[in-house]
């Protein structure tokens, strides 16, 4: 089944109470499947097609605030339109789960994959998990509800899957029995003594104003919850593995133990990178490995430092640009190891923007440059745009 189908099946099996969304390519089939499930009685939920993504997130907040388990999906312009409300959802500590079929942000207008959209929300307080396969998309949606609804977390989660590359790719997905999923993920029980729940029996005011004397404390609580989320993600993942036999972790270190060069990245490029790493090890004997950053928020600093401890070069590939400075994933990885005592050479790559394919050749090029850097202890350029048509833009920036 396709990534979008996997996401919709997972939301159905999570027995969500309310789905509110607005169609946008390449997310559309997720909400089409879910409205179909509601229409034919497979899913006992209310489906609200809002008048915009802004309205969709507002409706999700409304539904979650009265105690419903809520799911939505969007990407790109739609996610940007939700921006204001994403902070509200996180601030109200509502465990909404949203699938993001990562897509570029206009301009230029395009509907293809990169991570610019979700990067714009990385500091909103939402948990962000980037997945690599349709199976992982399914499993992560199920996990996301359990993570978000955990009392130590109570933050919304974005499950990020690469637009088209995963959303529209069909591959085998194991869909577990509904009863086993229900045992793993019981119905959402909001705690009115602890967090936002509007109940006529227990009147309270939520989301009102807050003066400077208290605001920073709420920001701290959110930060603390993100920190807690690391352990909760790990715990939920372990329990998931025990139940369903699949485990993903905060990061996945693939052949990193003895690797001099490690490529770090997120999303579907990781699968291709693993394949290329295997080939390079086999054919050329290069000591290369791949670090998949699965949880991007919270950013697993300790895991990143641990996985890269023995490396000589760390090549970070971002599918997004941080204009005026470089690339977001690079900045985060660099910050994560800054105080760890380890000093691999750091390489900064931008790839796959606006649907540019991340090919096996591109990945091999990244490893090759990493290997050079590992040998010389130097980087050739501060930042490298992989797959850029230099004929059109002149020399490498």
């Amino acid at each position: 089944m396709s990534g979008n189908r996997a996401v919709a099946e997972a939301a159905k099996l999570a027995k969500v109470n309310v789905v509110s969304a607005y169609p946008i390519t390449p997310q559309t089939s997720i909400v089409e499947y879910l409205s179909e499930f509601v229409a034919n009685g497979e899913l006992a939920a209310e489906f609200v097609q809002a008048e915009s993504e802004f309205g969709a997130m507002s409706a999700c907040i409304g539904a979650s605030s009265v105690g419903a388990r809520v799911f939505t999906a969007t990407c790109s312009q739609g996610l940007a339109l939700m921006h204001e409300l994403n902070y509200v959802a996180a601030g109200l500590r509502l465990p909404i789960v949203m699938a993001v079929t990562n897509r570029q942000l206009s301009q230029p207008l395009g509907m293809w994959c990169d991570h610019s959209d979700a990067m714009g929300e990385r500091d909103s307080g939402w948990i962000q998990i980037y997945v690599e396969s349709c199976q992982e998309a399914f499993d992560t949606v199920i996990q996301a509800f359990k993570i978000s609804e955990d009392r130590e977390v109570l933050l919304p989660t974005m499950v990020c899957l690469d637009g088209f590359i995963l959303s529209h790719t069909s591959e085998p997905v194991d869909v577990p029995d509904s009863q086993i999923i229900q045992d793993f993920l019981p119905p959402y029980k909001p705690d009115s003594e602890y967090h936002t729940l509007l109940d006529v029996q227990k009147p309270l005011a939520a989301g009102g104003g807050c003066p400077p004397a208290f605001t920073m404390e709420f920001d701290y609580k959110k930060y603390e919850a993100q920190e807690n989320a690391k352990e909760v993600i790990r715990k939920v993942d372990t329990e998931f593995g025990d139940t369903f036999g699949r485990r993903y972790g905060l990061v996945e270190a693939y052949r990193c133990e003895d690797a001099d060069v490690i490529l770090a990245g997120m999303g579907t490029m990781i699968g291709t990178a693993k394949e290329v790493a295997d080939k390079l090890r086999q054919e050329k004997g290069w000591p290369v490995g791949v670090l998949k950053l699965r949880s991007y928020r919270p950013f697993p600093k300790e895991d990143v430092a641990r996985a890269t401890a023995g490396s000589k070069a760390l090549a970070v590939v971002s599918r997004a640009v941080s204009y005026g400075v470089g690339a977001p994933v690079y900045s985060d990885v660099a910050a994560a190891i800054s105080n760890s005592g380890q000093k691999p050479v750091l390489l900064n790559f931008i790839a796959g923007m606006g649907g540019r394919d991340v090919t096996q050749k591109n990945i091999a090029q990244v490893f090759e440059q990493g290997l050079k850097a590992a040998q010389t202890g130097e980087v050739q350029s501060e930042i490298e745009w992989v797959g850029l048509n230099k004929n059109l833009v002149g020399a490498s920036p």
Partner: protein
Amino acid sequence: MREIRFHGRGGQGAVVASEILADAAMRDGKYSQSFPTFGPERRGAPLMAFTRIDAKPVRVRSQIYEPDYVIVLDASLSQSQDVTNGLKPDGAVIMNTPLTPEKVKEAGKLPKGKIYCIDASSIAMKTIGSSIANTVVLGAFSAATREVELQSLFEAVKNRFSAAVAERNIQAMKEAYDAVKG
């Protein structure tokens, strides 16, 4: 790993064919992945779809540049497109056309690879009652390449369509299979 590229027009079922092939490969006990050209779908416009089949899980997520096989659902596409672009030297083309491979080669549009021709549209029209030949061509693909079991294709088609529609498609696929096998 085997990589297969489908050429068709919007509405001819190339994407569905790529998914059915992937499903059938799984039923053969293999791993597979299928995906369309990423973009807006417009009826009549040329498009591609892809299938990867492997004995181990498919991890590669990049596009397919050097396919092992090319399946052409609409022969008229070869007039405007280089349908064999990147085809491996020992690869093969399965084409929906009433012409013979010799005639197709004479036309000079298919410079490389082994060519299998199947008049899938006629078979589809006769057996299914429509000119959508996507499943029919898969029957020919099975016979030509042995990359997928015909029985698995039947199962995948049954899983995809209603019983009556599946039955007609299976008939057509069988016919195409026999035609290629000769």
